[in-house]
């Protein structure tokens, strides 16, 4: 079980929660379970969500493992110049 922090807009789609608990070992599983538990989040996942694991931001790396006790933070996907 990992604790995942959602940013504002996403939190609203998860029933106003800013933190949710998800049983997931990697980013792929995290996205799948989130979409199951909170269907409102699914379109956002489709558009692209970044995952910060202990401060390092990952984009679409499904296989990236979520270490136990790690800080997991969801962020909007960004554009760069």
């Amino acid at each position, binding site marked *: 079980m990992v604790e995942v922090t959602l*940013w504002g807009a996403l939190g609203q789609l998860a029933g106003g929660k800013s933190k949710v608990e998800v049983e997931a070992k990697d980013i792929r599983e995290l996205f799948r379970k989130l979409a199951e538990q909170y269907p409102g989040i699914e379109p956002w996942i489709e558009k692209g969500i970044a995952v910060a694991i202990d401060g390092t931001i990952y*984009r679409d790396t499904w296989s990236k493992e979520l270490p136990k006790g790690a800080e997991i*933070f969801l962020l*909007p996907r960004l554009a760069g*110049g």
Partner: protein
Amino acid sequence: MNFDPRFSGRKFASVGTRPIRPDGIDKVTGRARYGADFNMAGQLVGRILRSPHAHAKILKIDTSKAEKLAGVKAVITAADLPDLTDGDAAMYDVLDNCMARSKALYDGHAVAAVAAVDASTARQALKLIQVAYELLPHVTDVDEAMKHTAPLINDTIFTEGLEEKPVKPSNVTKRSQFGHGDVHQGFGHADFIVERSFKTEQTHQGYIEPHACVANVSSDGTADLWVCTQGHFVYRQHCAQLLGLEASKLRVTSSEIGGGFGGKTHVWAEPVALALSRKAGRPVKLVMTRDEVFRASGPTSATSIDVKIGARKDGTITAAEATLRYSSGPYAGTWAEIGAMTAFACYKLDNVKTVGYEVLVNRPKTAAYRAPSAPMAAFAVESAVDELAKELGMDPVEFRIKNAAQEGTRSSYGPVYGPIGIGPTLEAAKTHPHMKAPLGKNQGRGMACGFWFNFGGQTCTDLNIGMDGSVSLAVGTVDVGGSRASLSLVAAEELGIAYEQVKAVVADTSSLGYNDMTDGSRGTFSSSMATISAARNAIKILRDRAAQMWDIPVDDVVWENGHAIAKGEKYGNLAALSLKEIAAASGKTGGPIAGHSELVADGAGVSFATHICDIEVDPETGAARVIRYTVIQDAGKAVHPTYVEGQYQGGAAQGIGWALNEEYIYGKDGRLQNAGFLDYRIPVCSDLPMIDTQILEIPNPNHPYGVRGVGETSIVPPLAAIANAMSNAAGVRMTHIPMSPPRVLAAIEAEREGRA
């Protein structure tokens, strides 16, 4: 790939040196081929007809006269670019931006295009296309567009991200929010609170090379596109999707690129050129004019930002709050969201809240511009931070040091930071001689900090070793400022050979796997990671071949300094085999030697900078001149320090232009009044001093050499650094960017009158 701690004490052989870039000779002799320097036999000239109106319904387009003009081979409208986006809203916006469908949404919006045998015929043909418009009320100002009374740009837009679903459509496409703690409580603990409102005008990336491409579509569905772009693989995907082509049958070759800065991450005219070529059955060359570049390609957002920061007497910030409104042109964007994420990223805050609003206006579709959205937010925040330091009676550097984020700090956008460079850049600023240099009359000094995320992303690299021992490195990230040199250095470093033995090229989309764009400061970061990986794969093969040549087990072969070495006493008589020797024998040992790499380069590592700037203000005219400028930034590890300095200097110069003079000026009619380099004033050589740089190297834990992206952060601090210098030089706090002479003089006069 993680940082290799062996490197922290190790001296690099190639990385960190400053050789001449491999593409240099062609660029100083005029032989390098940019977007407009390529031609195909039988090519036509493409030109685009653009709306002269800010907002208008397109009632009818009559192309019949143009079609009849001798020499015209194709005329297209939106009907020739049908909607194949299949519900992908973002791509639909790209399509509509390339060629307006039911409405022209800004001055410069494409409505039709022609391909003709020469430029003058194409020009004549455009004049013969008759467009019937029904004018609609328009809005170009971000604050005006948010009002309930503002003309609606898209009546299907209902603001996302609000607690209650809105019942009426709005120009605000989205609200986003970030932060933690309780700002209300935090402000309650503050002894001093600064609250200010700021505005920044829209700027353009201002690359000197206009968008240019040559498109050739064959009737069998194969196509070629030669184009100046920051990401040819992304252009391929977008063009293929919009034209209904198979991606693998569309080969996109990136030309040399004459500047992009984010503006060439987006297709503008390329799908139009392809559609023209498809219809005409001939190659079409389409080159934008400078006027078109300004009117119809990627400016940044105009913004309106409110900031409130509170601190205790001891200088601890207790709460920080910002509301950020960013224009995104007539299509939905996420620019305010990024601004809201970056605004307070430099600081350690217990209570912070930022709210962003994305706002539609009748201006060109906003595109990324170097650390997009961060400079405006930093301008507002760093101006307020300076004001607060003044109220507290604290030195602005000390105040920032006291509140700077560090490893373990929860960032204002959410996650907790790893090792970061904000503190070290501030400490370096504090002791920099620039800080102590004397100032003359009407001169003032300012400083400011900046933050940017940096990206990694999908990356693919091929490293091929020729039989003569030379190495060709094919990368898929477009070289925007010397990355072929830095990637060659990295390949040389890994293989243990000379830089001169490596030749890096940017491969086309048919020759290499997919690569994300060169954006988000990712070019050298990501492709160096892929190059290291490819080189290591090649070394595995080199060791294997050496083992064959010696007829010993491969486990007994190590790779050191460009040579295979047989390890162990029993091989004492075996002379080391050089890469060249192994390559020469490759035909007999198993064929060509190559290393490939496909990876997602994650962990780019956030980047911080501190800038110091001195300006001199003419109090009678409001004219300001930058007389000294220093950039201090963390590079993780500078692969080619000269080009790292170049990024620092270039970003600072763009920021200086933005701060002082650059802006989109719209008339009451909603038309852009300064679509040219004469009145869109980017800095000229005589406007700037030398720009000093100090490279800090705090290794990025997620890169084998510790490299961080360096391209973007340097544009973040200048707006605020100059505003802070202005405050110290002229005694006025400028809250509107650019600080053009009329604005500064008006502020000085108001201050004088206020005092009198």
